[in-house]
């Protein structure tokens, strides 16, 4: 096997690993099994052997399976005193093991067809929408009070309450609603209608579009009310899943498509509510640096990317609840930091600031807010045993805070945390901070009175 250049670079990086095990201290998968094979240090060892050509091709499949227990949460990389980027090393090894044509089999099919474009995932979601809208779901789960048994039940529990159609499918109607809400809100709140002169491309990712229409609507609504000029471009999947599975070629294809879709000069900011999309988009510059046709534009695109709360805090937003004296309902909220946002982009404070701007909200910090939830995209499905143990740790942490509501900024985390809450008998689903902000704006708009 010739050594792919990424793996060669990873191997050079690995020389600095002195096996001190500080990575195992923070590795959620290792904590779940305490098997050396499931920890960052163990993966480094195996990848070192792979790069050195000491592994028989016969064990490559075994190695691929073992590397699948890495969540790519990046906790090891953040903890490594020697600066070894184990998550990048794992990605490089997965690429090398997948080969130039990327993963094959079921996962290959999923990556190349379903996770290609938001619309593709939307189509696949159709039967699930019917399951929800027909009342079958409510019937089978007794209105959500009794989970289905076994593994299927776990996956079923991950499904949020699905709206009847995707965000994009309902966008035109939503724009009309916004316009109507905006009128009332401006009238009530007394904020002068203003344009901030910031043109925003809303990168509505596959998962948000198909399953969390409410989040997308809230983001769109919040930005619109605050005078941002929002457009929803036609985009491809960001490619995060493809990166995770070592499908580098397809990742680059998707990155080029998105750069084409987003490099119009009239776009000031690219905003997304998804931590993973945001993180992946910011890497486009680096990914396409070797492609002269794209390098510059990719770097420009990457530099414009903001997570929704990040944009609100940087660009400004109207704090809700100022215009009237109505008593706000108290709500205690715990915020879960998505790996890709906190460690990936260093965005930690902004979502908390948005949450705290909502009248009545008090923040109750988790003991381990940055511990991965165990969702990690498809990880919850492919590694159910480890995923469930990590989720249990997260849920224990949440319950110990005594908070009523769990918030986060990533739809993949929301799937996983939603399952945890549902199976744990907690009624409230996880929310995006923008959803709470949007609700507060609506309350402002609907409250009688207004500025004296």
């Amino acid at each position, binding site marked *: 096997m010739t050594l792919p250049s990424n793996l060669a670079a990873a191997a050079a990086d690995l*020389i*600095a*690993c*002195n*096996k*001190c*095990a*500080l990575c*195992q*201290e923070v590795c959620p998968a290792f904590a779940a099994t*305490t*098997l*050396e*094979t499931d920890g960052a240090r*163990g993966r480094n*060892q*195996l990848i070192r*052997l792979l790069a050195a050509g000491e*592994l*028989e091709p016969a*064990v490559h499949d*075994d*190695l691929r399976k*073992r590397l699948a227990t890495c969540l790519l949460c990046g906790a090891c990389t953040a903890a*490594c*005193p*020697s*600066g*070894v980027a184990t998550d990048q090393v794992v990605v490089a090894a997965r690429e090398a093991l997948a080969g130039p044509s990327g993963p094959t089999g079921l996962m290959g099919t999923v990556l190349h067809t379903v996770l290609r474009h938001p619309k593709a995932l939307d189509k696949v979601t159709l039967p699930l929408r019917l399951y929800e809208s027909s009342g079958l779901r409510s019937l089978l789960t007794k209105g959500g009070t009794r989970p289905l048994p076994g593994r299927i039940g776990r996956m079923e529990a991950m499904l949020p309450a699905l709206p009847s159609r995707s965000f994009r499918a309902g966008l035109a109607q939503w724009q009309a609603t916004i316009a109507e809400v905006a009128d009332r809100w401006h009238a009530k709140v007394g904020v002068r209608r203003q344009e901030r002169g910031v043109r925003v491309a809303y990168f509505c990712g596959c998962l948000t579009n198909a399953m969390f229409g409410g989040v997308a609507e809230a983001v769109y609504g919040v930005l619109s009310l605050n005078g941002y000029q929002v457009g929803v471009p036609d985009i491809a999947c960001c490619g995060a899943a493809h990166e995770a599975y070592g499908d580098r070629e397809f990742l680059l294809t998707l990155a080029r498509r998105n750069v084409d879709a987003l490099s119009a000069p009239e776009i000031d900011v690219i905003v997304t509510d998804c931590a993973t999309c945001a993180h992946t988009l910011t890497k486009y510059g680096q990914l396409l640096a070797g492609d002269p046709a794209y390098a510059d534009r990719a770097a420009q695109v990457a530099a414009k990317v903001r997570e929704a709360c990040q944009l609100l805090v940087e660009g400004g937003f109207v704090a809700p609840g100022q215009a009237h004296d109505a008593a706000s309902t108290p709500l205690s909220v715990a915020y879960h930091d998505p790996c890709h946002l906190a460690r990936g982009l260093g965005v930690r404070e902004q979502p908390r600031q948005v949450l705290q701007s909502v009248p009545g909200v008090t923040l109750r910090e988790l003991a381990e807010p940055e511990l991965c939830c165990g969702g990690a995209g498809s990880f919850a499905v492919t590694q159910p045993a480890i995923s469930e143990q990590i989720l249990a740790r997260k849920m224990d942490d949440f319950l110990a805070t005594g908070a009523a509501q769990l918030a986060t900024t990533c739809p993949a985390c929301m799937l996983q945390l939603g399952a945890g809450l549902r199976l744990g008998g907690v009624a409230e689903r996880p929310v995006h901070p923008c959803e709470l902000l949007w609700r507060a704006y609506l309350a402002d708009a609907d409250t009688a009175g207004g500025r004296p």
Partner: protein
Amino acid sequence: MSTNRTASRTAGSISTVARAMRDIVGRRWVLDGSLDRSLYAYDAGTVEAAPDLIVLPASGAEVQRIMRTAHRHQVSVVARGAGTCLSGGPVPVQGGIVLALNRMCRILSLDVERRIAVVEPGVINAALQSAAARHGLGFMPDPSSLAISTVGGNAAENAGGPRAIKHGVFRRHQLGLEWVLADGTLVASGELARAGHAAPSRFDAPALNLAALLIGSEGTLGVITRLALALEPLPATSSTLLALFDSPSGAARAVAGLAGAGLCPSAAEIMGRLDIQLANEHLGLGLPAAANALLVIEFDGPGPALPRLVARAAEVARNAGALSAETATDPAARARLWAARRASTGLYGRVRSASISGDVTVPRSRVAELFAAVADLEREAGVPVGMVGHAGDGNLHPAVLFDPTDPGETAAAHALDRAIVAKALDLGGSITGEHGVGVEKLGFMRQAFSPEVLRAFWAIKIAFDPDEILNPGKAIPAVSGSTTADPEWSVPPVHRDGEAPARLVTDPVELARFGLGGPACAAAGLVIPETHEQLVAAVRALVGGGTTVIPIGRGTHAHLAFRPFEGGVAVSTARLDRVISIDPDDLSCVVEAGCTHQTLARALRQLAREGGPHLRYAIDAWRQPDSTLGGEVAMDLPGPGWRGRGATREQILGLTWINAAAEVCRIGARTVKDVAGYDLTRLLCGSWGTLGIIADVTLRLEPAPECEAVLVAHAGHDLARATECAESVRHAVETAMVEVVATDGLAGSGDNGDRDAVSVETGDWSVVIGLAGATEDVAHWQGVVSRLADAGGLRAELAADGPARQALEAARRAHAQAWVTAVLKNRHSHDAADAAPDRGKPSASSAGPFLAAKIKSQLDPNWLFAPMAWVLSDQGYRSGSVTNASQ
């Protein structure tokens, strides 16, 4: 060669063994694929070697079956916890089985009342810490790896950590162990041996301290399957001082100065220039560039005295030339400081991609010299060296950093590392303070220990694991065919060189003065050597002639130590009574075995009069002033407080003894931490003269407390209430000495120590509570004691000078009496067990005595040393051991 033997014995049978292992633990928990083998081939050190098989048991019973199978097939077994060892301890250098204990990770019980946790070996240290913290308790050993390392691994390495300076290393917190021997035999000790039998005693039963050997044995003596661990109340508050120096010698001076100022910090950590620089760069500490050494000094305690103690420590630091000395009270700042200290070793990867992690110990007074020597070596070799460590106990971690792809630098780095270890030995230190010998320090063992001591190590290894199944090639240096049959390792013949022994005393009156004579202790004679040479000569002559040797001091406890016997010659150390040296900077002294408390106390007072620091031997006040220190060591007299606090064994840094071959053996140094070799000091301590005769002892000293107070609570006729009050104070007040005494004794009405006799006469009881420490803390504890006494319906009153002395004296007698009662009770229960019809049936509690007898037989093949002091009826176990060994 043992290496070849092991290789050949694993090759043929490994697939058979793998099948058998699958039957024991289930398919899923036996790993033998090439990937898994490479995953259990390393620890956090530099040595790698793959096992043939990885087995992950779920219970002690499975470990027993695994060991029986491995023993039958003669396959070596290496126990492994988290693999964070830095010396290659869990690396299977001879292949065989890695026994990964990670699945045995349950906290079996957590007794908040008695502050004892019983855990499986795979429990992660931090998990125990957080479980204990929910009850305001903590487990004191705190190695840097605590978030990931297992308690079993910590035990096998006798792990320390920053808190060790005040709270001691792992061995001090072990209250009982259960382990599996190489042949699958289960052995239990301490708390875990008495489960279901006798009520817990304040005192350890006298017996060879087998558990002490297991702690720090690096998996070469047994597989630990359960541990009973002492938990301590978490200190109410702590305060941290950060002092910067332009040279390490200034920092070292400050550390030495702390003791002189009577200060006992809970941590005193040092970082060198490179480490400060790295922490500045990568953790943004923002320390001044002029700083070449940094001290983190922490104090903990009940609170009131802390500000003053920290201020005084700052003054000490400034007097030693500190550039700055600031108190970090803000928890975030303290956390950052500690993060820097913890992470600094990891940051070495930013300088060079590889490092050799050092772990030497030097006497505290030589820390500056070691720093200087390392700086010189660093300059000569041109290889960077990181320097962090626990300055308070002289345990430093010089890390030689190098680029492994550069052969020249690699060679220079290894040479430099060896030079540092050699330097530490030169300075009177140890080759490893807490990381263990493993394979990385094996080459230094012959430099660090004499052949006699190395032979003793082997004798112990053979008693536990005659076939070298357990972690072969580790901890103690290998020798060709290291078995009992090998002439190189058997006890050499004694050479009689015609030298006349010291005068033999046979006069019954003289014998009686040493507790000998009469039908119970009918020694044939007594020798009282006056010099070390005479002592050696006397022993040589006696053992050479096959005469039984009865080591005694002044005979204070002869009646207790010996079963009725006839014949043999007693050797008394009574006239070897000098204080050899006192080293105030190292807080240690060396005394001859016959030195009494009085003599040592006098020497310490003299030192203070001459302007030296006020020091004391921690348990001075609790001993009969004229009993010998050597005798107390031999008997491991218990300390005054609860749970062996202040026990004699915790005070010993080193020993010199004469073994059964009349050879002089030395172990230990003026350092608190030393994990090289087996813990012979703790084996000899409490061996009651059965393994050799102690010639001199290195003891740790402590700054005399600033303030002392004695409280007395009268309980009238209510003994139960007095006992209850005493217990509650023992639990709540760490530093207290607490005894229930007959109120008669307080009036100074003579030697009325026997409680049972008194209770019949008067039935009047009091609780005596001694407090010591910083003035504010003593006041604080007084309040606590008063409240506890009130709660128990008693009134605790402060005793004035004269009555206080009398109260302490009464308490001392009561304490001694309680211990004597416990010893006799223990002996009776052994005798009863001995007479029982099912005697000899293997059980976890009977395996201990057999093992002890094997050790005795290894170290004293002819049972010449004090057989009458053997706690068990010797003949039975002795012959039992012989039968056992020949099977």
